[in-house]
């Protein structure tokens, strides 16, 4: 139950809660601006036809993140 997942490993259609951000610097600040703080609900909506980037539902908006970014976000699947 208490296991963490990288956001990039969240399957399409499932929902998780952010636990931690691993990114630093500008990417981290951009993630914060999107409202990615511990406890934020995030749903994996779809992947691009080529498999990357992936679109997530974050606080009412659909945001596409690349593998590199989503790998830097730790979540707990719900």
């Amino acid at each position: 139950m208490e296991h963490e997942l990288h956001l990039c490993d969240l399957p399409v259609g499932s929902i998780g809660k952010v636990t931690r951000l691993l990114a630093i610097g500008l990417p981290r600040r951009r993630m914060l601006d999107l409202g990615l703080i511990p406890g934020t609900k995030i749903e994996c909506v779809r992947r691009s036809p080529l498999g990357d980037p992936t679109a997530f539902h974050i606080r009412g908006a659909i945001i596409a993140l690349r593998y590199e970014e989503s790998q830097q976000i730790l979540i707990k699947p719900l």
Partner: protein
Amino acid sequence: MEKPSNQTSLAEILEITEATRSQNSNYIRDSIVESIYQHAEQITNIVVKQKELNKCPDRKLDDILTSPWLGYPLMLLLLGFIFWLTIIGANYPSQIIAKFLFTIESQLTGLFMRFHAPHWLYGLLILGIYRCLAWVISVMLPPMAIFFPCFTLLEDLGYLPRVAFNVDRLFKKVGAHGKQALTMSMGFGCNAAGITACRIIESPRERLIAILTNNFVPCNGRFPTLISLAIIFMGGAVFKTSSTAIATAVVVGLILLGISITLFTSWLLSKTILRGIPSSFTMELPSYRKPQIGKILIRSLLDRTLFVLGRAIVVAAPAGAMIWALANIHIGDTSIVTHIGQFLNPLGHAVGLDGFILLAFILGFPANEIVLPILIMCYLSSGTMLELKSLTAMRDLFVQHGWTWLTALNMMLFSLLHFPCGTALWTIRKETGSSKWTLLAFLMPTAIAFSVCFITTQIIRLLR
């Protein structure tokens, strides 16, 4: 860090804040944003009531438009349709505008005759400035007036971010951003517009890459050159019957080459000069909104028309005057144009072109659409820019001046790859705010154009 000896209150404050920051092991920003978002969440929970409704129509649309199977075909179909509509649809209005403008020219000519205006004045104003203006407007305006409204429509609908989403992976591989696909598409309309559009790329590194490489997609001003040369030198070269198909294949091949060079230079830039410049990728896919078709069409039509007219007046008019002067001022018994052409000849031959072709590109710096007319002017040693009645006439003229299919190929390559036009460079300067990047945007394509033509020529000459 050396501190002023007597502690001022500001220094004290800064010390206190720094202490707080390090106590939080530099995650103070997280804490701040958390407080703000928690507050925002609290308020939202109080004021927003959501009825249970049909789950987002947007998602269903996205299921189709970004689906693994249909995403790409639909995208290519849509973009292909816009290009087709632009090229086919522009022909007719182009002819009408040209006819209209050249009727006015002959009336103006009549007027000048009536008042016995000096020959040089007539030449400078009508054959130089007016004709160049007419050229740029009739070649440029119709395709722009079709191409850009179509794009604006897709933009307003919210489809364009989905394109970026679909293709991003390809661009990521070369260190660029998926939105570059869109700035490139805009470049097909006009490179200056494509460069301005690079503002949609938030990440500084990827934005610069997109700006510096936009030129490798041929704009509306270069398409007619590519198409004409493909038809007369490539199409007929093999079999008469399949000439259109071959010409089309050549143009498509050139576009693909342009795209490959774009990806290659993007990769090169991201690995060399632009290495380490910060980059991040978060892209919103906004919900689809119903576009206000009427308003958009009118707006974007007006905008484009103003843009083309403005450019024609600011850029093409002076260029027309200068070209006329160069062609009509003689040193000895040859015009300056011919002198320069002969001077450039050796360089031209090395890359499979000739001096006049190079000169045409140089004089066509203000606007690519006048390159071919200038070349014809040079070959005919006439004092004004000309368009020939038929493609056959153009072919005959070029062959007389020693053209082979290799010359045509090189000219197409050079047109595709050479330095950006004046407007595009000026836009780069404005967008990057730096002369250094502008210079690079000029030198890089120029070097590539010369190298590619040189290598092509040498290989073909060896093979023969």
